[in-house]
């Protein structure tokens, strides 16, 4: 049994809302509300969800670019949350990041070479000619020519800039990379190039990725395991295969059915959600998804009980008290006002027939 490279437990981030002249705290935006997961070395964990679900915030907390309100983050056995500046800086070599927007993630006033070299300079890994040599190697590794070193970011396309960003992250030899929507801003054909590159790099260097995205097709392709987030909580966590073949959480089912399938002949059973995502400042009680849920056994118990994330099949965790098996006893649900017993609900979704 391998030990996880990254271990997150009950991670929370609440942003206080200040009201009034004196800025009194009047509630909080629960951006991340108790998130726990592990990432194994060399693995890709996909983190999917729609805007406002907290996936980006989770990524930033792991990088300690935002301080968690509560919870623990363990990397390679070290507790990140309690580290001081100097120790954290040293650890930053191991945990790197790739950003979404290729047009704002590179300093427009620095040459490509300087951008990639910066990590080497900060951590004193190489200097002068040796550093230049490393930069050339990295450019080659991401499929770009060495002579691009002296050019500026604005001379490159989105896909090329993403490659530069990847080279920058690789320069310090990380073992874990937080990928915050790395291909969302790219065209389909460019996206494919960058995804292939990331997979190659993972294989060659044994990298682990936390792949944050809202595009489910991309995540299914690249991730080993996937966690689905909604309003700050993980509602489903399973291997990519299991999640896409048999999504048990009603939200995941809706999400998957909403993905447009490039096949006009596909029979489409669409689960259309009504209304908008509630505000994370005012999440629904009990199960955060219950107001929009389409599960046939949905009842008052769903509004009262916060569903635990529990294993419903080997390695497949779901937060729903209405999908059996569940530890939340029927008697407990009835006591909370429930009148419909749990039943398996698995709508047939397009592309899965």
């Amino acid at each position, binding site marked *: 049994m391998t030990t996880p490279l990254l271990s997150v437990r009950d991670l929370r981030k609440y942003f206080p809302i200040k009201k009034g002249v004196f800025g009194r705290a009047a509630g909080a935006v629960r951006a991340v509300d108790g998130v726990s997961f592990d990432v194994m070395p060399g693995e890709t964990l996909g983190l999917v969800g729609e805007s406002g679900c907290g996936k980006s915030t989770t990524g930033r907390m792991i990088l300690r670019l935002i301080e968690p309100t509560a919870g623990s983050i363990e990397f390679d056995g070290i507790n990140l949350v309690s580290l001081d500046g100097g120790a954290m800086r040293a650890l930053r070599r191991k945990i790197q990041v790739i950003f979404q927007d290729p047009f704002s993630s590179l300093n427009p006033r620095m040459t490509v070479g300087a951008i990639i070299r910066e990590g080497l300079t900060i951590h004193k890994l190489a200097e002068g000619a040796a550093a230049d040599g490393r930069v050339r190697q990295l450019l080659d590794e991401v499929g770009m020519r060495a002579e691009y070193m002296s050019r500026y970011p604005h001379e490159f396309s989105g896909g090329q800039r993403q490659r530069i960003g990847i080279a920058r992250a690789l320069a310090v030899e990380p073992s874990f990379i937080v990928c915050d929507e790395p291909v969302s801003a790219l065209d*389909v*054909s460019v996206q494919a190039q960058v995804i292939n590159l990331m997979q190659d790099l993972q294989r060659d260097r044994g990298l682990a990725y936390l792949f944050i995205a809202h595009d*489910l097709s991309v995540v299914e392709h690249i991730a080993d395991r996937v966690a689905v987030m909604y309003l700050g909580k993980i509602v489903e966590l399973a291997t990519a295969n299991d999640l896409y073949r048999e999504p048990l959480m009603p939200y995941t089912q809706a999400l998957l059915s*909403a993905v447009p*399938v*490039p096949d*006009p002949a596909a029979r489409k059973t669409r689960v259309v959600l009504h209304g908008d995502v509630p505000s994370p400042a005012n999440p629904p009680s009990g199960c955060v998804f219950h107001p929009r849920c389409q599960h046939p056994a949905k009842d008052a118990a769903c509004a009262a009980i916060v569903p635990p994330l529990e294993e419903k099949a080997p390695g497949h965790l779901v937060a729903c008290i209405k999908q059996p098996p569940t530890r939340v006893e029927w008697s407990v649900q009835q006591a909370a006002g429930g009148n419909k017993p749990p039943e398996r609900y698995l709508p047939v979704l397009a592309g899965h027939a």
Partner: protein
Amino acid sequence: MAEPLLRVHELRTYFYTEGGIARAVDGVSFEIGAGETVGLVGESGSGKSVTALSLLRLIRPPGRIESGSEILFDGQNLVALDERAIRAVRGARISMVFQEPMTALNPVFTVGDQIAEVVRVHKGGSRREAWDRAIKMLETVGIPSPAQRADEYPHQLSGGMRQRVVIAMALVMNPALVIADEPTTALDVTIQAQILELLAALQRQFGTSVLLITHDLGVVAETVSRVLVMYGGEIVEEAPVRELFSSAHHPYTEGLLNAMPRVGQERERLETIPGTVPPPTAWPNGCRFHDRCPYAWDRCAAEHPPLYQIGAGHASRCHLADEPERRAEKHEPLVTRTSA
């Protein structure tokens, strides 16, 4: 055969910039029939958005619609109309839905006001009438409590709601054609599903034609009946939607379809189209795709292919239509062989 609602003929829109002449749209021709939904698909740099803007004459200097371009709508050539006449068309006969609802809406006016303004500008009438019509439209696009929402400002609404408002503005004058430029790209996927359903329902209800511009082939598969694929400022393939997906002809279309990761499809690696999109200031000679094409041969570098008809309603700008046996000779595209 009924007269098409919109007939575009040899549209050319060039931008005269410091870096040279950018031939963003370079000889595009297509038709849209009444009540039809047509998809215009392409990636960045293909010219699809500039095409859309050209249709409504929204191109500003240094861009210009070249002489010889024809946009025939309802018996008139839109290119030849003067400013007043084209303004009468915009919003009332042809309207547009943009990608970013937040920037398409004026932040200092209520949403009700903005919809009502469209009515007043085109139809006149009293403020009361325009307001009532606006509320009715909000209801039609599925916004709950429309009378209250009409008094709200754009920032008070969610992204999906704002896009519904934009659609309401586009449809309030019952135009014959709606041009939707990536209407769902900025939205979450569940909201996108809602908006696409809405568009389909409204289209059925009002009988509007829709030109849907997008880079997402999945969206296209669900919503349109005919697809136009653009590359290098030209249309490279045109087909009914089923045929495009089942038997795409042009190597670029093929490449796009293969590059898309699909849920449920097990693949180790995605197939990519090597190289990058050429800049509109320097389209390659011959076939504009030839250096990235796995089938290209010497004819492709020398001779610019016309749109060959290869089936009912199916056309492809590729010499493979003329020499189909070459499809068996797949090889490394030029761009991978020459780059370091």
